[in-house]
């Protein structure tokens, strides 16, 4: 699939359909995979495709430094593709301004603290039922194999990986859960890697960075960290596509995506809403319906 990807991008660059290709390359220490930006058709051999392509490259589409490079092509997995759709639906980019190359993905491996592969799939991949990206301009890879993987995961998609972890968490008592997150958030150093690596956290001045008034403390104190993590998760309610970039980037190893999964589940169960499925979809919180449930309201 790698050669197919390289040839496709070489053609795009040669024909000037795009000015820069945002893909994966062995750019980190010991050949760790990260984002690479190819503008010259001869450099396409820097691009790779394997199950270490962990990052969600859509986060670069809204960055000023990358916009300066001109019209982008972007390599996406299915979960990343949904983030591109949400960016379009939220009018951050125009769909025709980005050439989306989907690659069939058979699951991404987690990395240990040194960036080496652990052999285990990411939580989201265990319950993934959409291995072939949608809303793309070009799809590379065997769609049939993707379908087979979808069907293999479908039966217990909602009871493995992060869903399993969340279920275990929700089964705890309220006090135990509070203690669990107290311990997790005590590790948070407020480096905001979760925010900066999230494709949908594109605000140029985050509300946590504002000080007139200071809505939440910028300190990495316990109360500051609770306020920050609650605010970050809620500002992604009905938007997060579950790509796991936040938890993968957290230096303290906090399982932030469980908070987002809670909101994604609530959006799906109560409003039948899954973000990033089709272009033109209205945002969940931006709309309402007279029949929304309200049994918790006095």
């Amino acid at each position, binding site marked *: 699939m790698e050669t197919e990807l390289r040839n496709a991008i070489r053609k795009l660059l040669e024909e000037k359909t795009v000015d820069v290709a945002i893909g994966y390359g062995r750019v980190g220490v010991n050949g760790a995979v990260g984002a690479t930006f190819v503008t010259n058709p001869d450099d396409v051999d820097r691009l790779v495709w394997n199950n270490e392509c962990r990052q969600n490259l859509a986060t670069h589409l809204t960055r000023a430094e990358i916009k300066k490079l001109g019209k982008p092509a972007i390599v996406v997995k299915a979960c990343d593709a949904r983030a591109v759709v949400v960016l379009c639906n939220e009018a951050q980019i125009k769909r025709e301004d980005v050439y989306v190359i989907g690659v069939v993905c058979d699951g991404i491996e987690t990395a240990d603290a040194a960036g080496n592969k652990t052999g285990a799939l990411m939580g989201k991949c265990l319950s993934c039922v959409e291995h072939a990206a949608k809303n793309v301009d070009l799809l590379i890879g065997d769609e049939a194999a993707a379908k087979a993987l979808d069907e293999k995961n479908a039966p217990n998609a909602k009871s493995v990986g992060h869903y399993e972890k*969340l279920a275990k*968490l*929700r089964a*705890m008592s*309220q*006090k*135990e*859960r*509070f*203690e*669990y*997150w*107290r311990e997790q958030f005590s590790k948070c150093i407020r480096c905001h890697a979760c925010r900066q690596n999230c494709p949908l956290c594109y605000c140029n001045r985050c*509300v946590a960075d504002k000080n007139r008034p200071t*809505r*939440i*403390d910028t*300190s990495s*104190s*316990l*109360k*500051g960290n*609770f*306020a920050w*993590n*609650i*605010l970050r*998760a*809620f500002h992604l*309610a*009905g938007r997060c596509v579950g790509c796991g970039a936040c938890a993968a980037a957290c230096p303290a190893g906090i399982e932030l995506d*469980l*908070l987002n999964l*809670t*909101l994604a*589940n*609530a*959006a799906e169960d*109560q*409003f039948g809403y899954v973000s990033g499925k089709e272009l033109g979809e209205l945002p*969940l*919180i931006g709309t*309402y*319906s*007279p029949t*929304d*449930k*309200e049994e*918790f*309201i*006095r």
Partner: protein
Amino acid sequence: MNAETKSTDAFEPKIVAFVCNWCTYLGADLAGTNRLEYPANIRILRLPCTGRVDFNLIVKAFEIGADAVLVSGCHPGDCHYTAGNFHARRRWDLFRELLDTVGIDLNRVYFSWISAAEGAKFQKLVTEIVDKTREMGPYEDYKKLVAES
């Protein structure tokens, strides 16, 4: 039921109420003019609409020592801004799920619709919240968390 008659060391809960300016605030006012007494533990904050209730305000309320939080506004359809409360309802539903996962005590977070004519409902609800919170005692978990910050 007057706060002074209680012995001074008994726990007096602090309740923060975010109320909408067009309905619930007037409902509270009506309770006052009708001599419907409600406990003084409640601190009323007036906002244009429940749609304006930003969710870190609720977290901030617990940070500064609230033992329970009430968010109340116009009934669906009565909103002065036509859809503020509809948006709020959908957000409250999602936010309660998030608070539940984080382990914040949902028995201390109340949402309600109180119209300008429902002074009695306001008094009944506030009294109920104060009594229940007094029973539950102070929100120790969050106070400990803030103390350690």
